[in-house]
């Protein structure tokens, strides 16, 4: 059903190639696995909402939150999920910007993570509201002086930008599906936006992508910075810290890379992408993860040492609550999972292979969740004035929404994989046909110029 068998001007990109046909298989011939996965996940999510209906009916009393610990799982998961979102767009933008050629099979998955997880995480503060029916007051009576408003602004901007940033590079691939007559046809012809692969369109696309990737980086950095400001702008011990902004951003990128690795390894297995996602891709990302782990430890060390050394009584109570008190298992667990295990596994080439990377990444995802827990709860549980403190134990409702959130994440991927290719076909083909000579030329341009006798080859910047 090829509508266009027109000759492609110098580009071979838009038509579907034989060589990458297997990337379209999940879309064109979905197995029964999708239906089963979809049904199971839908049931889990439905179940979570059924449990959650208790909160809508009776109020936030059905959670485990209490008087000093007024924030719990919902806020922890909000920070956690939004943190994961930095996997995507930010990493993909940085890799694109730095012309890291190994990015090609990775960027799309990273960008999907961002969009899916932002939708989940961004919704969490609404779950946490005592009056979700009044959420629009944020717009009608919003105070821009409140850090919460900075969050709303920043996260909305990030969601918009990353959705567009996911969609725009998908257009040529959607056009391939349209031309191959994939169903539902209306969806693909609508989303392909009249893509014909002309040189002009190609140029516009590339321009759009380069604008977006530059734009998206400051937005992504701002997102987790202002999330940390929610805490840092209060006077509470353990929160009121100047390094919280960068600390959160580092943690976010750290957990994001780990989540990306888990997703890549899982999808590689399910969709047999071994030909595309090779050992080298994992190795490169794992090195990034290692760097982030060290960086994370550096921030954590600075943060806690500063608190400890000053030894203000209020600060110390929070410190020892984590160091040796009720939160010690979570605190030391966090250090194990975020620092010791990943550094041990990822430092050596022998263990820096897919099984090891998977273990380290899962560890980091859990460890970063613990980090969020360690930040949110202990500060609230140790108020300045003597208060009848209760231990915060999340209730069934909160656990249900946690499980529901993770199920939504998997469902997002299942749905995406059902309708769109998980790896950018045109970018892979561009890599094959254009990037190799381009990279050679680039490397040549770095080399010292030929001897002055003859004016030689031309560098083209960058």
């Amino acid at each position: 059903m090829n509508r266009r068998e027109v000759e492609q001007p110098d580009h071979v990109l838009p038509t579907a190639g034989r060589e990458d046909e297997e990337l379209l298989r999940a879309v064109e011939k979905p197995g029964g696995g999708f239906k089963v996965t979809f049904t199971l996940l839908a049931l889990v999510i439905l179940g979570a909402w059924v449990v959650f209906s208790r909160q809508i009916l009776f109020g936030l009393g059905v959670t485990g939150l209490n008087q000093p610990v007024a924030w719990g799982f919902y806020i922890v998961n909000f920070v956690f999920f939004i943190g994961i979102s930095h996997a995507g767009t930010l990493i993909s933008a940085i890799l694109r910007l730095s012309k890291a050629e190994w990015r090609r099979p990775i960027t799309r998955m990273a960008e999907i993570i961002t969009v899916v997880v932002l939708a989940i995480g961004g919704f969490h503060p609404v779950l946490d509201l005592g009056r979700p029916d009044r959420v629009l007051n944020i717009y009608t009576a919003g105070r821009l002086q409140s850090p919460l408003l900075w969050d709303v602004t920043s996260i909305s901007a990030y969601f918009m930008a990353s959705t567009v940033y996911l969609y725009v590079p998908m257009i040529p691939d959607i056009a391939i599906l349209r031309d191959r007559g994939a169903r539902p046809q209306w969806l693909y012809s609508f989303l392909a936006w009249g893509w014909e692969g002309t040189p002009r369109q190609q140029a516009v696309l590339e321009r759009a992508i380069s604008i977006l990737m530059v734009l998206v980086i400051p937005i992504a950095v701002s997102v987790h910075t202002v999330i940390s400001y929610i805490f840092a702008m209060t006077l509470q011990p353990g929160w009121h810290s100047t390094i919280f902004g960068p600390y959160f951003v580092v943690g976010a990128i750290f957990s994001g890379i780990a989540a990306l690795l888990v997703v890549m390894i899982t999808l590689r297995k399910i969709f047999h992408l071994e030909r595309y996602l090779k050992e080298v891709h994992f190795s490169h990302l794992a090195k990034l993860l290692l760097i982030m782990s060290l960086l994370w430890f550096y921030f954590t060390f600075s943060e806690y040492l500063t608190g400890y050394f000053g030894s203000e009584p209020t600060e110390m109570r929070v410190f020892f609550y984590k160091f040796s008190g009720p939160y010690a298992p979570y605190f030391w667990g966090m250090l194990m999972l975020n620092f010791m295990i990943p550094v041990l596994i990822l430092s050596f080439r022998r263990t820096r292979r897919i099984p090891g990377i998977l273990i380290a990444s899962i560890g980091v995802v859990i460890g970063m969740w613990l980090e969020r827990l360690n930040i949110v709860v202990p500060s609230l549980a140790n108020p300045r004035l003597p208060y009848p403190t209760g231990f915060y134990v999340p209730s069934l409702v909160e656990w249900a929404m946690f499980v529901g959130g993770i199920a939504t994440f998997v469902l997002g991927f299942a749905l995406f994989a059902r309708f769109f290719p998980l790896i950018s076909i045109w970018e892979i083909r561009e890599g094959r046909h254009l990037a190799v000579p381009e990279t050679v030329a680039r490397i040549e341009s770095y080399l010292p110029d030929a001897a002055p006798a003859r004016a030689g080859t031309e560098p083209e910047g960058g």
Partner: protein
Amino acid sequence: MMARWGMVIDLDRCTGCGECMAACHQENNLATAGPEETVQRSRAFHWLRLMPEFSGRYPEVKLRFLPQPCFHCDNPPCVRVCPVQATYLSEEGIVGQIYARCIGCRYCMAGCPYNAKVFNWYEPKRPRGVERGANPNVSLRPKGVVEKCTFCHHRIMRAREEARAAGRPLRDGEVSTACAESCPAQAIVFGDLDQPGSRVSQLARSPRAFRLHEDLGTRPKVTYLAEKG
């Protein structure tokens, strides 16, 4: 002339009887949380609580209670963080809460260094019959909003109306909060801090006067008087 309402609590007089707490509950139509909520789930529900203060070591332990209402800070951290301006500092220095606008995010509770605010975890419950005897001057709160001490701001309004009707200025001692009025030891004094002759402003200048965590720059308007000797 605008008043600047404040309170002095003399710890030398306070016996820790808890009458102020009870009076506050009744005056302001506070919901009853019940023992399970209060003790097991740590959701005590008071606008004015008795803060326990331990000193000494076993067996020479001394336990005292500090009555602690909202301090109505002149630089209130809760007001700064509210996303919808549901909590505000009035011209007369009272930190108020707009129940009809509050979205229940509890950011103000997380931001308050004194934990002065409480949240309606459920639809507020009152023992049977109490509803009918509720104070008509204080609105009932719905579930899911934050609420707090108002310095009995309805009483201030009433007193001001009465004074205006009589064509005279508001006199010192004419307005009192429920906690101050009910205190059998007369440990709590309420009044205008900006009126130089008022009892509260004089007591607030006492050498025994201190405020809790003044170092945070919150400028609380509730002053404690330390015990003598």
